[in-house]
Every structure is written in structure tokens, then in C-alpha cells.
């Protein structure tokens, strides 16, 4: 059916949104743990919470957070590549 790919697009959008959310929560959790461990290892001046919040702010604008978009982009690219190689090549 012609609507097949629309259905795929909607389902894919839902699934990819969930995956993106899970990965971004995971990535944030990893970063926070790293900051905590780094502070607890000693050698950092100042307040622990302030240090961690500051580190998370840096993460929020960093490259690593933007790279999470790959979990959305790569599957879409894979689908397009599959369509091309199966039907057009």
C-alpha cells in the first residue's frame, strides 16, 4: 500500500524519540557520575554541587550531547540506503 511508508515514518518517529530519550538520560547520568568521581578524588576547589551543576551546564552545550542525534540519524540513513540498494541498484 502507498500508506505503508507513512506508517513506517510515524512508528519510526515514536521509536526513535524513545531511544533518543533513553540514550540522552544515560549519557547525562554517565557525565554526572564522572563529575562526582572527579570531585571526590580531590584537588577541586569550591562547592561540590556547584562544581557538578557547572559541569552539567558545560555538557548541555557540548559536542557529546549533540552527537546523540546520531541515534536518530543513523537508522534513517540505514533505511534510505536499504531502499536504494534493494530497489534502485
Amino acid at each position: 500500500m502507498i500508506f505503508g511508508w507513512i506508517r513506517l515514518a510515524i512508528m519510526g518517529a515514536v521509536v526513535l524519540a524513545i531511544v533518543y530519550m533513553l540514550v540522552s538520560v544515560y549519557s547525562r547520568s554517565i557525565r554526572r557520575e564522572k563529575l562526582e568521581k572527579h570531585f571526590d578524588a580531590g584537588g577541586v576547589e569550591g562547592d561540590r554541587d556547584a562544581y557538578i551543576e557547572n559541569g552539567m551546564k558545560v555538557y548541555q552545550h557540548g559536542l557529546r550531547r549533540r552527537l546523540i542525534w546520531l541515534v536518530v540519524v543513523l537508522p534513517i540513513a540505514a533505511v534510505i540506503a536499504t531502499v536504494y540498494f534493494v530497489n534502485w541498484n
Partner: protein
Amino acid sequence: MWTKIKWGIRILLLLMVAGFLHYTLPQHDIVRISNTYNKLTPIGGNWMFYGIEDTGTGAETSVNRDIRYIDGVFPNGKVIVYRNEDTGWVWPPYFKYDSATLQGEATNLKSDKANPQWVSITHYGWRLPIISIFPNAVNITPVDGPDVTIIPWVNIIILTTLAFLLFMLRRMWLQFRERTIDPALEDVGDAWDAVDARADDARRSASGLFGRIGAWLGTWRSKPRR
């Protein structure tokens, strides 16, 4: 006993996953195409191994379907029959909608025993005569001879990706457990410890009938705030 059952279930699960992957992932056959044709095919309990309804032209029903077939002959003389059906957009994720073109290519590459034209047919699925199911042809490319080696790059990439996803899923779960579930459980554990301590106090003061009643009444008092 329980370990045997547990291992049995594990092995069964592993076999099911392996079988599922073996059915779904693409494989290459080197064959000579001997015939291409359409056949009205009745579909019953084996519907799972055919295209989903309404995927191609919309004429696919679950009772009778006009399906394109490709007959192939292996270099050792054994034969194989492929079906050539659109997969549609969901499962299996080949997104194939060019079965008419593929049938044209297959017919064009037809050859006889005397002048064999060898082709590599990419397909997925199994040929199981007992339930009348056929592998689905996905791609056909002419090859030089029957002895060419084809490296299954697609399978290498897919299996590596799957292994990586499993690994990441495990890491994500462990991280979630360490950072979210365990602290919550510790809170619960602390609460239980507090209850235990209060119960010990109550037991100590519960001597004699009135002491006991008093202790029992004491358990109804509001908890000390933490």
C-alpha cells in the same frame, strides 16, 4: 532440576533468536535461473512466511495470491525455488517494492544447461516444502562463474551492530540500576532498619502484662521524624 530447566529455557531462547536471524538476514546463492513464472498460490496457516497483506499492489489477500516465482539450479544440480514478493514497509525490513522489475531481470538472465549464466541471488527465508514456504529473492546480479566468493558485508555490519546494541543496553541498564534503583532500595532499607530498632526498643520495655500493653500502644504512636 531447576538448573536443568533454566539451561533448557536459555538454550531454547538462543535457538529461537538464531533461527529468527537465520530466516531474516540476507544470504547469497550462486545459481542458474531456469524458469520464471507466476502461480496462484493458496495461503493458509503459513501466512507468516509470505508478504504481509496489502503490501504490493493491494491485491494481496490471505487466501489466494498471484505470486511471482523464480526457479534456480545450483552448480551441483540441486534445484531451489524462490518467491519474488514485495516485503512492504515494516517487516522484514527490506523495503522491497520492485518485485516486477526483479522478475524482469530474472527472466532476462534465464539460461540453459549448455550455456549457463551464473547469478548471485540475494534472498532471505527458508525453503520448507512441508509447509510450502519459499525464500524471497531480493536482488539478482550476474557473476562470472559458479565459484565466486561473496563476502556477506551486510550480515557483518548488522550482527556487529546488534552485538554493540546489546552491549550498550546492558551498560545502560547497569547504570540505571546503580544510579536510580540501588539508592531507592537503600532508602527503603534504612526505613526498615529504623522500624527494626523501634521494635527492639518495644520488646525491651515489654515486661509484664501492662508493660506489654503499653509497648503495644507505643507501636501506634507516630514515627519520630527523620
